[in-house]
């Protein structure tokens, strides 16, 4: 049972380049989320998706693009990376019934460095 995975785990890119972070979950959870973690801020929501082809902005969406063509995948794209986007990125998912409806399950994170 793989759960929720992210790739790559580490990425270094240059300012202005496009980079895509991948997230895959095997639970068929309806909801998926992208967070960034920065010192002094905890985790902040970038985008979330309630189902395939349904996405919405979170607290800090500027500079990011998401898509969700399949329930199990939720890629996050930085169209033109900036140094301020250097961060650790977490993907999460949750179901819609029972205990899973409130708890979010997190992937292992991707550390992104923009030089």
């Amino acid at each position, binding site marked *: 049972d793989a759960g929720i995975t992210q790739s790559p785990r580490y990425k270094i890119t240059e300012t202005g380049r496009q980079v895509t972070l991948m997230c895959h979950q095997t639970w068929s959870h309806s*909801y998926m*989320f992208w967070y960034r973690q920065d010192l*002094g*801020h*905890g*985790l*902040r*929501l970038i985008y*979330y998706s*309630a189902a395939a082809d349904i996405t*919405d902005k*979170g*607290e800090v969406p500027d500079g990011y693009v998401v898509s969700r063509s399949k329930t199990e995948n939720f890629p996050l794209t930085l169209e033109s990376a900036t140094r301020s986007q250097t961060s*650790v990125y*977490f993907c*999460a998912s*949750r179901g819609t019934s029972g205990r899973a*409806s*409130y*708890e*979010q399950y*997190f992937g*292992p*994170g991707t550390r992104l460095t923009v030089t």
Partner: protein
Amino acid sequence: AQTVTQSQPEMSVQEAETVTLSCTYDTSESDYYLFWYKQPPSRQMILVIRQEAYKQQNATENRFSVNFQKAAKSFSLKISDSQLGDAAMYFCAYIHNNNDMRFGAGTRLTVKP
């Protein structure tokens, strides 16, 4: 907007002792959920405990318990019989509409042998 505040950037506890981590939040809602997540050096976010706001009884999970004071908007985590494996960052989190979870800035817990 809802905010979550953890006023203790760092805390330290002796092994086998008890420690309490503080969390306050700001909301105008009456129905919401609160969580404590643990993040060890591996970076994995691990759910420690959760509390439904409509429940008056404080949640407990083995050595972990909370003191939920709804009127005061306070949600502290008590770790009893601290173990070396408890050393980690601890994040308090709030969610109302099930989509926008708000996190505090975290408390780094050190456990001394």
